[in-house]
C-alpha cells in the first residue's frame, strides 16, 4: 500500500510519497511520481487506486488552472482543498474516487498550510499527516520529533527518520521515495531517496 506523508515547517511545507507502482505481487515501476504540482505554489500528494489517483488529481489540477484563467488570480490553498473535498463528496455516493490526498501549499498572506483529505471526503487542516501502511510508522515518528517552525534541514532530518523507519519495519516496504517542497519560491521537487535505481526513460534530443 502506498505511503504519503507531509508536514509544515517555518515558511514551507513538505510532502513525501513512495514511488512504487504495484500490481498484486508485481512492481511495475519504482520511480512513479505521485505528488502532483497543482500550480505554482501547491502540491498534491495522492495515494490510492492507480486510475483514480491519476484521473482525479489531473481533474483537480485542470480545474485549479481554469479558475486562474477565468479570474486572473490563483486559488488559495484552503479554497483548493475545499474544492477537492467537495468533488470527492459529490462523487462519494455514486462513483467514489478511492484516493487519499495530502494537499500542501504556500499563500503569501497566510504562509504554508497542509490539508488531509481522505477518500470519504473528510478534510482536516493539520501540521503533519500521513496515509497508507507507512503512516503507522511515520505518524508516531512525527508526533515524537515534530516542533513548530522547523527549518528545512530539521524537517528533512525528520522525513529521513520516517523513511528509514518505514524501510526497516514495513514488510512490503517501498524502496524509493520522492520529497517535494513548497515555499514562497514555489512548489518543486526537493530530493529522491532511492535504494533501487530504475532505468530512466531516455529521450532523444
Amino acid at each position, binding site marked *: 500500500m502506498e505511503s504519503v506523508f507531509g508536514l509544515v515547517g517555518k515558511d514551507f511545507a513538505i510532502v513525501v510519497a513512495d514511488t512504487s507502482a504495484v500490481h498484486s505481487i508485481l512492481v*511495475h515501476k519504482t520511480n512513479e511520481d505521485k505528488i502532483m504540482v497543482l500550480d505554482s505554489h501547491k502540491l498534491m500528494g495522492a495515494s490510492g487506486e492507480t486510475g483514480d489517483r*491519476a484521473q482525479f488529481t489531473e481533474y483537480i489540477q485542470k480545474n485549479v488552472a481554469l479558475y486562474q484563467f477565468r479570474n486572473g488570480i490563483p486559488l488559495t490553498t484552503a479554497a483548493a482543498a475545499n474544492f477537492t473535498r467537495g468533488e470527492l463528496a459529490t462523487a462519494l455516493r455514486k462513483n467514489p474516487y478511492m484516493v487519499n490526498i495530502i494537499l500542501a501549499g504556500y499563500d503569501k498572506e497566510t504562509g504554508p498550510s497542509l490539508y488531509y483529505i481522505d477518500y470519504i471526503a473528510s478534510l482536516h487542516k493539520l501540521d503533519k499527516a500521513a496515509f497508507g501502511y507507512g503512516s503507522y510508522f511515520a505518524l508516531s515518528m512525527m508526533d515524537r520529533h515534530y516542533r513548530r517552525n522547523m527549518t528545512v534541514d530539521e524537517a528533512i532530518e525528520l522525513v529521513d527518520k520516517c523513511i528509514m523507519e518505514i524501510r526497516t519495519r514495513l514488510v512490503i516496504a517501498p524502496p524509493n521515495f520522492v520529497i517535494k517542497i513548497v515555499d514562497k519560491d514555489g512548489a518543486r521537487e526537493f530530493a529522491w531517496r532511492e535504494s533501487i535505481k530504475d532505468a530512466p526513460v*531516455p529521450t532523444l534530443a
Partner: protein
Amino acid sequence: MMKIDFGGLDPSAPLKGNTDDLHNEILAAPSFKLPITADFDGFQKAAVQMVKPAKGTTTLAFIFKEGVMVAADSRASMGGYISSQSVKKIIEINPYMLGTMAGGAADCQFWHRNLGIKCRLHELANKRRISVAGASKLLANILYSYRGMGLSVGTMIAGWDEQGPGLYYVDSEGGRLKGTRFSVGSGSPYAYGVLDNGYRFDLSVEEAAELARRAIYHATFRDGASGGVASVYHVGPNGWKKLSGDDVGELHYKYYPVEPTAVEQEMTEVSIAWGKEDGLYAVICFQ
C-alpha cells in the same frame, strides 16, 4: 391561406389502420430486458466474474537504444483448456504504433481498433501524427470511463514519435504508467526475471530480440497459460517490423538440446537354469 396539415406526423396520434408490434416497439420508452433471476445483483457479479478471464498470457516490451522491442506468446486458454495456440497478441494500431493484448481478447482487439480510429482522426484533424503519450492517454481515459463494468484489458502501447521511443502500460482499472520495461500477464513474473537480468540500454537489435524471445520462452516454460509461438516485433524510427515468430517447443530444444547420454548400464539376458530336481528356479538376471 392554406396551412399544411402536420397532424399525421404527430407521434401520439394513432395512425389510421393497424397499429402493429413494430410500431409499438418504436414508440415505447427506452428499456432493456432484465434477466429472470431472483438475485439480480449476484447475477451481475457472477456474469462479470465469468467474462473476466485471468490474464493468461505473457507479453513484454522494453525501450532500448534502437527503439522498442515488443514480444508476446500466442496461447489462449479457457480455464484448463487451450483454445488456441495461434492468437495474435501484438496488435498493429498503425504503422508506427503497436499494442499488446492481455486479458479479454475481445476487449483488447476492439479497443485497440477503436484507438487506431481515434489516432487516424487526430492525424487528419491536426495534420500530424499523434504521440504515444497522447494515444495511451486516449485509451486510458476510455478504459477509465468503463471502470467497474467488467472490461479486462492489460495492454502496452509502444511506438516511436517525435520524442523518440515511447512505452506506456495501460490497464482496465484506468492506470497508465510510463516506463522503459514492462511485462504483463500471468507469465510476467517469469519474464521479468529474465528480462531485468539481461537488459542493457545499449543492446543491438539482434541482442534485444534474443533477450525478448528468451524471456517469453522462459515464461511459457513455467506458466501453463502461456505458450504457442513467441512473436518478436521491433519499433524503430520508421515504424514497426515483425522480426520473428518461433514455436516455443522448438525454442526449448534449441536452447537445451538433448544430450545423448553415455550408456552406464545395459540390460542383458543371462542364461536361464532350470532344475526342478536341484531346486533351482528360473533366474533371469539383469546387470
